[in-house]
């Protein structure tokens, strides 16, 4: 293990060196030395944690859930870390920078799902599940079909989310570190395989916690620096921003982001319920010891995420004034402006990064760049672990195991490690293949599938007594299929990617149709199910509900 860590760190360093050589001759940006030094420190520290975690990861329970020994505060910080991805940090700051108030609408949509998760999902998950959310959906239903459904739901969401993160990270690293795109994607892929395969959930959680603390400290500093320039008055900040921004005062009002009521509501549903169907987030509730700690996790996570979103709002406006309004470049234009493309250098998503330079100089830019890279690594690791668990725990150890036969735990762990490597390699290949693609739809699709296929089945399995295997399976697949079809017929895939002209379905987020459809299908195929199995599912509800409500029986992990 130690050898592998050393080997990987050497590889990381040599990749930067290779990137530097290539960078000199190609279009890649110049080498950012402070960023690379800080990033290498981060990688070495996290590989150290992985080594430490690998010594403590012996059983399947250690691998999937860190043995249930994470505290509520630690878990809440890690959940916040999962949520504060590069997409939120750079994307939402970039959106506020570009559109002003509309950026805040997105942040609020991402946040309001959390209280609902607390009231409806978090304790229930902890009390009923063991390693994956499929443990909950299949609790009283037929194992095989329900596990396969949930595994499909998890793996699709994980792969789509991974593609988005990989492509985003490759681009980002190219700009920040001057490292070539392919090298960047390969580096991210190998590091995440190392974290997950050797360190399991324990390493993944601690990498996420460290990154969350670094990110929150960095963004707090930036926001304070911005506000200090305006005497800590929001009014002065907004006045300065409207003077600089080409859209003027309209950045202070809701604009064209959500143009019609159906899109607005649909986006709201996708963001709110999608969060409650993301496998890498749901999995975190199994890492704490009991319902009380699960609750505390959501409380801490909601606080940190809310705080972070307020910071992104300040940073976005700060970037308008200090990055867009900068006059220190040649001829009095902003030094962060690229005259050739007539945009911000590296596009709008770089607003937060250039703001770091504007308020803190080269070293702080280096710090924020390293944190952005760390953010990507931590998030893809969580995703990979969730995907690997779906393969090894849901498919291998349960759905495809012979009837009545208990799968050897060591074998299951071995499979989870192969699955980690397979997902990592798939992510690298997809990341490189999708380099030139518009990945916005990928995120929309991931959230829509999570909201349409995973969430309805999970919710109904916890709360609805009359749910049957047939209802869950039909509803889940109908949710999955309708989400896929509606996204393909929608404006992003149909018009922008396939170039087929006017979209058949005019909504980017079709959740407003696919989520109710999934619920309706679950209901209809359950109540019309008169089979013997259906009665068994219904009869088993009371015992499930008691465990769900009280946690009785949850402490001693139940073997399925």
């Amino acid at each position, binding site marked *: 293990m130690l050898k592998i860590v050393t080997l990987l760190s050497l590889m990381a360093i040599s990749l930067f060196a290779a990137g530097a050589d290539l960078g000199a001759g190609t279009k890649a940006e110049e080498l950012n030395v402070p960023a690379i030094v800080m990033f290498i420190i981060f990688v070495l520290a996290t590989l150290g944690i992985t080594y430490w975690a690998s010594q403590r990861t012996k059983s399947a329970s250690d691998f999937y859930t860190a043995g249930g020994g994470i505290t509520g505060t630690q878990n809440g910080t890690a959940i916040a870390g999962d949520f504060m991805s590069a997409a939120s940090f750079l994307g939402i700051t970039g959106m506020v920078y570009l559109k002003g*108030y509309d950026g*805040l*609408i997105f*942040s*609020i*949509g991402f*946040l*309001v799902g*959390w*209280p*609902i998760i*607390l*009231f*409806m999902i978090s*304790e229930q998950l902890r009390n009923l599940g063991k390693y994956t959310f499929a443990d909950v959906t299949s609790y009283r239903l037929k194992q095989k079909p329900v596990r396969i459904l949930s595994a499909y739901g998890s793996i699709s969401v994980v792969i789509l989310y991974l593609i988005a993160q990989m492509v985003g990270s490759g681009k980002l690293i190219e700009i920040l570190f001057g490292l070539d795109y392919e090298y960047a994607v390969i580096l991210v892929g190998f590091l995440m395989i190392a974290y997950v395969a050797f360190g399991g959930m324990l390493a993944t959680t601690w990498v996420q916690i460290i990154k969350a603390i670094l990110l929150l400290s960095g963004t707090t500093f930036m926001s304070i620096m911005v506000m200090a320039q305006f005497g800590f008055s*929001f*009014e002065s900040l*907004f*006045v300065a921003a*409207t003077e600089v921004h080409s859209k003027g*005062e309209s950045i*202070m*009002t*809701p*604009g064209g982001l*959500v143009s*019609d*009521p159906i899109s*607005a*509501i649909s986006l*709201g549903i996708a963001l*709110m319920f999608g969060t409650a169907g993301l496998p890498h987030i749901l999995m975190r509730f199994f890492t704490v010891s009991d319902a*009380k700690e699960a*609750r*505390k996790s*959501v*409380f801490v996570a*909601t*606080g940190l995420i*809310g705080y972070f*979103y*307020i910071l992104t*709002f300040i940073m976005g406006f700060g970037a308008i004034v200090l990055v867009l309004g900068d006059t220190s470049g040649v001829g009095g234009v902003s030094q962060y402006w690229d005259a050739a493309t007539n945009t911000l250098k590296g596009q709008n998503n770089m607003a937060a990064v250039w703001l770091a330079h504007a308020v803190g100089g080269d070293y702080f830019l280096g710090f924020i760049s390293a944190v952005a890279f760390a953010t990507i690594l931590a998030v893809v690791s969580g995703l990979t672990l969730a995907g690997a668990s779906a393969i090894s725990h849901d498919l291998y150890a349960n759905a495809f195991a012979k009837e009545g036969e208990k799968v050897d735990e060591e074998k299951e762990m071995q499979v989870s490690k192969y699955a980690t490597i397979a997902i990592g390699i798939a992510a690298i290949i997809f990341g490189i293949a999708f380099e030139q693609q518009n990945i916005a739809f990928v995120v929309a699709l991931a959230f829509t599938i999570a909201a349409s296929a995973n969430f309805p089945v999970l919710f109904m399995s916890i709360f609805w007594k009359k749910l049957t295997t047939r209802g869950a399976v039909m509803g889940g697949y109908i949710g999955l299929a309708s989400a896929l079809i509606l996204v393909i017929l929608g404006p992003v895939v149909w018009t922008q990617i396939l170039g087929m002209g006017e979209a058949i379905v005019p909504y980017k987020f079709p959740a407003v149709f696919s989520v109710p459809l999934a619920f309706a299908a679950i209901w209809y195929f359950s109540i019309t199910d008169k089979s013997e199995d259906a009665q068994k599912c219904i009869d088993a509800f*009371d*015992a499930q509900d*008691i*465990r769900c*409500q*009280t*946690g*009785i*029986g949850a402490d001693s992990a139940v073997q399925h």
Partner: protein
Amino acid sequence: MDKSLVEKIKANPSYNELVTKRSAFAWKLTITMLVIYYAFILFIAFSPETLGASLSGGMTTVGIPVGIAIIIFSFAITGFYVKRANSEFDDLVNNVKRDIEKEIK
């Protein structure tokens, strides 16, 4: 969990109190959160100028404090739930567990 234990717990007064009170509380809070969020979304969709109105003659619009307030409210409402769950609901859960242990002995 065997059938007789299920029936015993279902008949336990603390258990019934827990289920009734917690689910009423959780649904009330969920509906509050949904109403606030979708009211905000409907304002954006149908009447963006309401949120875009100047707050007190300056550049700051009504939408800014409203947005920040929703973020703070989301955090506050989780705290509100956790506080009651940690005391009242957990006490009831412990009552159920104690009663059951007694019965088994």
